[in-house]
């Protein structure tokens, strides 16, 4: 179980070049003949292989973040009829590097009133959980670091740890705006985690396994079609959980300056930015794996290209959301989660439960039937909920949040 990642040929080659050919994973030695270490030293080979893999994953994630930041800035600029960064390198491709140099050379300021330990730990804590998510995602037909039997739950659990970063940043700064941002972050997390997990159960009931490798393997029809309601809820929930626009009210610059990272500068601020964009990529990868049939596609392209295409499509959709929708208010956001998404998720759970009770192990035909039923249910329920929750004609919504979440209401603002 713990050394299951050696089933990947690339990882196995690294390991078997080090470990003795007597070890059970490396019958016949590595590609360069016998391993370097004598028998009994497999643990060292294991450790070195693990570090190599961690190095690869971390650097791939950082590189992806840099490319994605460039892409998002260009795309949002296009959506808002601007040009975007285009000075440094072809199409501005080297802008992230210039940004990084700028961030690294900036002065690192810690406020005098700050709780230094908490303040300095917060930027680290935003990056670590996101990197942990990449461990269980199958990027191609045989490429994953760990095939956990509780993979889906693991992702939810690890992502929920990320909110500690916001809380610690808000508390450590000893600053009202940062604290308000932290409150909003926790409120968002608590509100949106529940519908997200409920939406996932529909997928798990079809696959009968929480391993992401199995989920992709069983996904003969993309679950975005079989579970349209679950897909929408999970997509909205992910955007809210990583606090991207239109749910970025934990760092709403027009109300809270920068939210929980108001007081950060230099590389610590850079870690917050990298963590947020990395979380976006991780969420897109999760959605791709769970709902868009992961690395599967038609034969004319290799599996990792298929994964990349779907990943970029999800990222495009998320950036589109960011460039189009205005920021919501905290009371709108929490009300939407509890009154809108939670009942929909519960309905989805019941319908999926009945359907998987009828077809315990669905084939392709049954999956299509499920897709049609679920699409009808989704359309009717979303329409009904919109009628129930939406504003009446001519109604003007007023903030109903408590004073904790809302900055003092100014007179004269529309």
């Amino acid at each position, binding site marked *: *179980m*713990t*050394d299951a990642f050696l089933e990947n040929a690339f990882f196995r080659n690294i390991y078997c070049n080090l470990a003795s050919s007597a*070890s*059970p994973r490396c019958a016949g030695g590595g590609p360069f003949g016998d391993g370097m270490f004598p028998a009994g030293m*497999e*643990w060292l080979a*294991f*450790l070195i292989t693990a570090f190599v893999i961690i190095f690869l994953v971390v650097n791939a994630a950082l590189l992806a973040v840099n490319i994605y930041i460039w892409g998002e800035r260009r795309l949002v600029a296009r959506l808002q009829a601007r040009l975007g960064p285009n000075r440094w390198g072809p199409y501005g491709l080297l802008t992230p590097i210039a940004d990084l140099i700028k961030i690294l050379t900036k002065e690192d300021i810690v406020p005098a009133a700050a*709780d230094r*330990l*908490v303040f300095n730990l917060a930027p680290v804590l935003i990056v670590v959980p996101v990197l942990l998510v990449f461990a269980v995602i199958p990027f191609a037909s045989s490429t994953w670091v760990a095939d*956990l*039997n*509780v993979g889906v*739950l*693991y992702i*939810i*659990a*690890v992502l*929920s*740890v990320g*909110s*500690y970063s916001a*809380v*610690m940043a*808000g*508390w450590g700064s000893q600053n009202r705006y940062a*604290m308000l941002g*932290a*409150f909003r972050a*926790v409120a968002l*997390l*608590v509100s949106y*985690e529940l519908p997200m997990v409920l939406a996932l159960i529909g997928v798990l009931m079809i696959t*009968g*396994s*929480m391993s992401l490798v199995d989920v992709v393997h069983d996904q003969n029809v993309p679950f975005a079609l079989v579970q349209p309601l679950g897909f929408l809820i999970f997509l909205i929930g992910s955007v809210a959980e990583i606090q991207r626009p239109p749910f970025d009210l934990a760092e709403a610059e027009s109300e809270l300056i920068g939210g929980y990272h108001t007081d950060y500068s230099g590389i610590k601020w850079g870690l917050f930015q990298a963590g947020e964009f990395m979380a976006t990529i991780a969420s897109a990868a999760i959605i791709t794996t769970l709902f868009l049939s992961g690395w599967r596609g038609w034969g004319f392209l290799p599996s990792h290209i298929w994964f990349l295409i779907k990943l970029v499509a999800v990222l495009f959709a998320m950036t589109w959301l960011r460039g189009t929708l205005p920021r919501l208010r905290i009371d709108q956001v929490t009300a939407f989660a509890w009154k809108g998404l939670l009942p929909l998720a519960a309905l989805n759970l019941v319908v999926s439960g009945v359907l998987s009770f009828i077809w*315990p*192990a669905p084939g392709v035909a049954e999956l299509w039937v499920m897709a049609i039923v679920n699409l009808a249910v989704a359309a009717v329920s979303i329409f009904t909920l919109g009628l129930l929750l939406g504003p009446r004609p001519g109604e003007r919504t007023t903030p109903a949040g408590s004073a*904790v979440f809302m900055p003092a209401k100014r007179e004269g603002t529309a």
Partner: protein
Amino acid sequence: MSIEGSAVVDVAFWIVAVMAIAAALLVVTVRDVFKAAAFLAAAFLATAGLFVLLRAEFLAVVQVLIYVGAVSILIIFTVMLVRNVPGGNRTGGPFYVFAGAAAAVLLALGIVYAAFKTDWTDLDQAAAGDDRVAAALTGQYQAEAAPGDGGIELIGGPAADQETARQGVFRRTANNLGTLFIRDYVLAFEVISVVLLAALIGALALARERGAET
């Protein structure tokens, strides 16, 4: 030889165990309540690490999801709403000290008793040749994978070797727990669900402001 029996696991165990105990000590010694709550979360995380080393991945993940991701974060949320946190809280009188010490000693005695009472089975030894244990694991799997059972995958067939049996137990801890919940212990499970629902509604009723509209 797999990685499980090697020194890597021992080293990992000591790192996690020392982390858990240090964090637990800091929870009660640190005066800043916010930091105490954060250390509580760290202690929960370390406990999850212990579960992983025991190859109970499901328990580990649920520990992180519920205790770290929900319970601790709500504690921290509450702490942040309180003013003057770094000043520390008032210490209670001698009654609280004695009552707390008595509760701690009783709990420790209970845990030690349970630890000695438990019939620990070394699963690596089982794989290495304790036929009795391997047979027990295999047999359990054959029983659970009886025909007409619906949904449970056949892991250990009649010819299953010891390694398969050993792997099988740990591959699907979540499925086994689920089966136990909705088959063997369904009554307890349902009762707990109703109790939790009652607690939820009770909390809502208590938190509701009197005279508030809706």
